[in-house]
């Protein structure tokens, strides 16, 4: 009995050593958990992730998520994934705090944790889709390209307290100060997350500033609202509207010429990159300053942030007439 036990222990040790050695390049299972399933945006990230998994060939991808954006359901999925002894848990967190203990438990169990789209308070690496600076600069560059270096333009944000919008506005103002000092922002309206009120705000702006040449619309509802107002006022092509939203929603305005550029990131690329990040996390090649290869997207530099490591997808993606029909979200 004792001999059997010793034999088994030795065997287990041998297996463990072989496993450790074979870690790099071994077949791994990645559980990828979006905020929710069944919406176009997360179908797009799934598409990119599947593409990357197929390319790598040694990644088994399990894309599972709750049917509503629930942190509790995500926790359940994470805990089950720990039981299933997967290699990587990759998650777009519905609640950064609530998910942290479960993710920490996974990491304690030797599972690598990758966050993407929405970060959590415990992870090995965050695949960041865009920085505030990146978005802010892309918005200004697009506007200047359309109406010139002097403006004038106005901003429609969501609420004055909205953290993302405020960070974008700050980044936009930095860019103006640095590159286009004569560019005038004449007004900032905050109609909340309400398309009808954003429509109204855009109408008010055009009345109050007859020489207004551009409107920045900084939420996914403000953008179509403002575009609609410009179109109905017959000012398509005279007042440029630039903002953040999803391509499917903005496609009609892009096609009729009211909107030239829709600024966002490419969710397909985001899903794609997060799988390469997962692979690198298991292989142990994720270190500060290291460069990792991500297939068709090229090479990425890993940076350190206040939690752990981060990989930035890159510059924001611009949807326009030439590509907007390729995106179904």
């Amino acid at each position, binding site marked *: 009995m004792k001999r059997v036990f010793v034999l088994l222990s030795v065997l287990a040790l041998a297996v463990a050593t072989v496993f450790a050695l074979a870690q790099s390049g071994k077949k791994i299972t990645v559980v990828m958990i979006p905020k929710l399933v*069944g919406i176009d945006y997360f179908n797009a990230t799934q598409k990119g992730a599947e593409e990357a998994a197929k390319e790598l060939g040694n990644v088994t991808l399990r894309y599972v998520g709750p049917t509503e954006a629930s942190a509790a359901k995500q926790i*359940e999925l994470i805990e089950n994934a720990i039981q299933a002894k997967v290699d990587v848990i990759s998650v777009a967190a519905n609640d950064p705090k609530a998910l942290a203990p479960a993710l920490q438990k996974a990491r304690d169990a030797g599972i690598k944790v990758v966050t993407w789209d929405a970060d959590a308070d415990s992870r090995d690496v965050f695949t960041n889709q865009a920085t505030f600076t990146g978005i802010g600069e892309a918005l200004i560059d697009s506007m200047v390209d359309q109406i010139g270096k002097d403006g004038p333009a106005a901003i429609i944000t969501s609420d004055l307290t909205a953290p993302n919008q405020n960070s974008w506005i700050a980044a936009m103002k930095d860019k103006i100060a640095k590159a286009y000092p004569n560019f005038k922002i004449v007004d900032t309206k905050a109609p909340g997350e309400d398309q009808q009120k954003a429509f109204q705000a855009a109408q008010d702006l055009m009345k109050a500033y007859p020489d207004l040449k551009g409107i920045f619309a900084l939420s996914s509802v403000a953008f179509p609202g403002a575009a609609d107002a410009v179109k109905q006022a017959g000012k398509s092509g005279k007042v440029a509207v630039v903002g953040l939203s999803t391509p499917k929603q903005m496609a009609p305005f892009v096609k009729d010429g009211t909107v030239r550029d829709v600024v966002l990131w490419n969710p397909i690329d985001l899903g794609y990159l997060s799988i390469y990040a997962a692979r690198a996390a298991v292989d142990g090649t994720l270190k500060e300053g290291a460069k990792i290869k991500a297939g068709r997207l090229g090479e990425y530099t890993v940076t350190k942030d206040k939690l752990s490591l981060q990989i930035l997808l890159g510059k924001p993606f611009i949807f326009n007439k030439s590509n907007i029909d390729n995106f179904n979200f």
Partner: protein
Amino acid sequence: MSAKPTKPGFNVPWSEVVLVTGLIIAVLYMNSLSPAFLSPSNFFQITRISAEIGLIALGMTLVIITGGIDLSVGSILGLSGIVMGFLYTAGLNIWLAALIGVAAGALCGLINGQLITRAGIPPLIVTLATLAIFRGLALGISQARSFGNYPKEFLALGAGYAGPIPTQLIVFVVLVIAVGLILAQSTLGRFIYAIGNNATAARFSGVPVNRVLVLVYTLSGALAGLAGVIFTARVSSARSDAGMGNELDAITAVVLGGASIAGGSGSIVGTLLGLLLVGVVRNGLTLAFIPAEQQAIIIGLILLVAVLLNQVIRLRTGRG
């Protein structure tokens, strides 16, 4: 297979034999789907996640036996967590805050009970309304924030273990025994069955129908409140959307367990088996990475088959 007269909740009716068989089949099948399924740690994982629904299902069993329904329990779970989180964040002692959270749940249940018995509004309507009201209150109090940063001793309630046994399983087992005893052995238990069988007859035989009903709904609320506190400890943050849809999971477990939605029948053992069956199936399918939408369909089908089998059994044994 003779039709024995059944003393409620005491001897094992056929529906429970069906459930145990179903459970065994489910365990064997899930084991073939995923090698990670059949392990002690996974078993305790199932009980950890099922404990909250289980607490709600205990109260729901009593409610359904009286012929009622309580749709507001998921919202009560959310509200209790928020009340506790709000008070703790405001500086109150965590255990006192937790106690008030449970009390808030009981108060919600008391309101349900009073509306049902005094105003005579059907339980379905009352609790449908309070489902919306309690959720709205939770949203209003929290202002869409979540409350976190709890002390370690409190988090142990939802994330701690005694040896391999999760803390909430111990809490749950104690309450299962308590509620099970009340239902099967006490006068109150007999009153509950009597009301479900025929409320008018019960009233004329001297059963204090209204008082029993108020008590049952209050208990249901308190158990949902406790589930809210445990949920908060498990996920370490109180959110206003917590427990959304849990009422349906609890009703599923109770009905799977052989309770008749018309009242008068049902047992804690049955509810436990129903709970375990749903827990095993969901866990197994998740371990096999079956997508959530397919899981929902499978669980719905299991519920239909179980209820149909029960129906057949009732007809053949001449019950119900």
